[in-house]
């Protein structure tokens, strides 16, 4: 399976795959940024006193979490053109993954905010802060410690999920691997190589996420003792 000829081919494929891995990273970072912002908005909307807004956010979360990423991607890429919105595949993947992870991130934000002692928000309003000010200056900074570790875990999952974008032919690692496979018909070698590249990107990230989890747990304990 691994002969000198194969190694020569691997050397030929590597530059292309590395460029494609760059696209994968770019897609993941953009979708993650979108998810962070949209997720916070959804979480705040869900906690809003306006009934319709909070219910709409709940429905959004349940819809996203109950359906596959692939279906959402296809709805955005193949469905939106029928209402006149045509997105190129890369942008469609960023939007679909970003909106998908926004629902999961909203749940993380909500749990983090709920974990901050209620008295903190009440004290903030007692000294005359508005609800928004209390959220921004008092509650969110404390919720961060609880929110960060699961958010980091989501980054790992998102990075791997970008592979789904190959199914709408968005330029990224898995798509490039498909191309090379159809050119050389060596699927085992090419997909294993792609797998190694995903591993090289995702494994350090998940080690980082675990480190963050421990570090935040320690700092929470310290904060409680202080």
């Amino acid at each position: 399976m691994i002969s000198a000829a194969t190694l020569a081919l691997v050397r030929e494929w590597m530059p292309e795959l590395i460029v494609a891995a760059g696209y994968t990273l770019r897609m993941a970072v953009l979708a993650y940024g979108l998810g962070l912002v949209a997720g916070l908005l959804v979480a705040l909307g869900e906690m809003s006193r306006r009934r319709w807004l909070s219910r709409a956010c709940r429905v959004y979360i349940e819809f996203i979490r109950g359906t596959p990423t692939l279906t959402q991607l296809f709805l955005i890429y193949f469905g939106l053109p029928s209402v006149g919105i045509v997105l190129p595949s890369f942008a469609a993947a960023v939007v679909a993954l970003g909106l998908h992870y926004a629902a999961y991130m909203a749940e993380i934000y909500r749990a983090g905010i709920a974990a901050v002692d209620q008295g903190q928000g009440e004290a903030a309003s007692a000294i005359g802060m508005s609800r928004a000010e209390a959220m921004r200056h008092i509650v969110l900074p404390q919720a961060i410690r609880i929110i960060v570790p699961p958010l980091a875990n989501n980054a790992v999952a998102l990075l791997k999920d970008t592979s789904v974008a190959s199914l709408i032919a968005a330029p990224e690692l898995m798509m490039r691997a498909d191309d090379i496979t159809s050119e050389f018909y060596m699927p085992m070698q090419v997909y294993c190589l792609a797998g190694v590249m995903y591993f090289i990107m995702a494994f350090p990230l998940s080690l980082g996420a675990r480190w963050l989890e421990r570090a935040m747990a320690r700092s929470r304990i310290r904060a409680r003792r202080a």
Partner: protein
Amino acid sequence: MSTQWLRFVDRFPHIIGLLLTGAVVTVIVTAGAFVVSVLLGLAFAGFRTSDSRLLRALAHAYVEVFRSVPVLTQLFIVYFGLAALGIRLSPLPAAVVGFGLNGGAYLTEVFRAGIEAVARGQTEAALSIGMTKLTALRVIVLPQATRIVIPALANFAIGLLKDTSLASAVAAPELSFNANMLVKETYLSTQIYMSVAAIYLGLSLPLSALSRALERRGARGSRA
């Protein structure tokens, strides 16, 4: 827009028939992959908590590698990769194996956490009354660990159900695959993918209600 919906209503029986047939296959793939995941997860959780350093390292490597590579890549290795080496699996078995291998890595960690959550004294007590390690694991630790892992298993099943949509990429005739065929046939992408989303919701919402109920029951049980 409205003519599309009219065409959709017109062809609804045909479309929904194919989608529901696909949904049955989706459930079959999910169930098959779930069983494979549980078996692999149990085996590797056993390795992960064993006394042999080699087995522990092996199980650890399995967990880290399969959790760090996209499941789509794993599926393609099983379906296209093995075929090139002469091992030709049909799409359905390939999907069951691919998702099973991937899920096994996640469940290894779930089961390990469950086993470790059972107090050590339980094992020690079992050993001191003369049970072998395996018997102690089987009749003392696992029954208690089961209660701990069931909510996580339910969540895993929901994730798996949605992930099986990727099996459409290896032409397994499940819900998403049939949907793609119908879209190519009718161009009613919005309507068809919305129906697909509704069917997935119909399958996953009862599962997630079950998982929440189990979580509540588990929380009650552990207090008792």
